[in-house]
């Protein structure tokens, strides 16, 4: 049984390498994947691209929150926003962006100048809503957007309080 299992594994490795060498969907043998945040430096998702807004970690997020100037934007849906968000954030749910003129919507919802510091987050490593929202805001001329990809989870993990509103139904 052990001998058969080893042969099967070797065969799988050979097939995998051979097919990956010719497949149009091939991937590198060692990928660039981020580990869970240890609090040192920002979490950067694998799908981040050149030209994306900068990513910040818990220390920077905390500092900016303490300074109180930056606008924190939660990109998750309203119920999740209600059930635990970074205090003082506003909610711009990426999945429910209205049809029509997004630029106008951003301007009226955010209510800050285009160069105002904005920090976008969602719930953490599994969530890419913050990245998508940040790209959109950047495209509509917001120049000072940062992404706190560790999100509400990293925020809570490092001892910061989350704000819960009465609309939360969980």
């Amino acid at each position, binding site marked *: 049984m052990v001998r058969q299992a080893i042969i099967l594994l070797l065969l799988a490795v050979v097939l995998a390498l051979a*097919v990956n060498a010719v497949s149009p969907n091939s991937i590198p043998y060692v990928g660039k994947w981020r580990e869970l945040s240890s609090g040192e430096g920002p979490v950067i998702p694998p799908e981040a691209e050149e030209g994306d807004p900068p990513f910040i970690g818990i220390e920077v997020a905390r500092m900016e929150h303490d300074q109180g100037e930056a606008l924190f934007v939660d990109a998750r849906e309203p119920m999740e926003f209600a059930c635990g968000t970074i205090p003082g954030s506003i909610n711009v749910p990426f999945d429910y962006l209205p049809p029509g003129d997004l630029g106008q919507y951003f301007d009226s919802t955010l209510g800050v100048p285009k160069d105002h510091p904005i920090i976008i987050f969602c*719930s953490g*490593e599994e969530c890419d809503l913050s990245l998508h929202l940040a790209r959109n805001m950047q495209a509509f001329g917001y120049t000072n957007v940062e992404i706190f990809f560790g999100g509400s989870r990293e925020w809570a993990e490092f001892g910061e309080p989350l704000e819960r509103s009465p609309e939360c139904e969980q």
Partner: protein
Amino acid sequence: MRAVIDNDWLTMVSRLILGITFIYASFYKIIDPGSFAKSIWYYHMVPGSLINMMALVMPWLEFLCGVGLILGIYFRGSVAWIGVMLMVFLIALVSAISRGLSIDCGCFKAAADATGSAWRSLIFDIVLIPFLVQLLLTRSRRWMIRP
């Protein structure tokens, strides 16, 4: 009991159910290892440097073991790997569900959906375990090419 477990037809049914499931499951992963690698990453259970190799090799192991069960080639080795993989999936799913519920992530494109599908996968995994146990115990070697 022994006679039931060793029954050739029952063994064949278990081989087909597990074999077809694993071959079917391997297809999209073999075709699109990049997406599968990302799925593995989401679990945060595998070191980053190993994720891509795992995403490349595991689907082929699923495929080979599925074929091994159905045709009866390297039967014992195939059953062993399928057992290992079912256990790995079980642990990963339980861990993901337990963390997912506490994370309340609206993400994954569709959070509710993602949690729902994890539950479905977990139930499916558990349903397959009796067939695995039967194949581990059976002495039937009928309709096998090279067990």
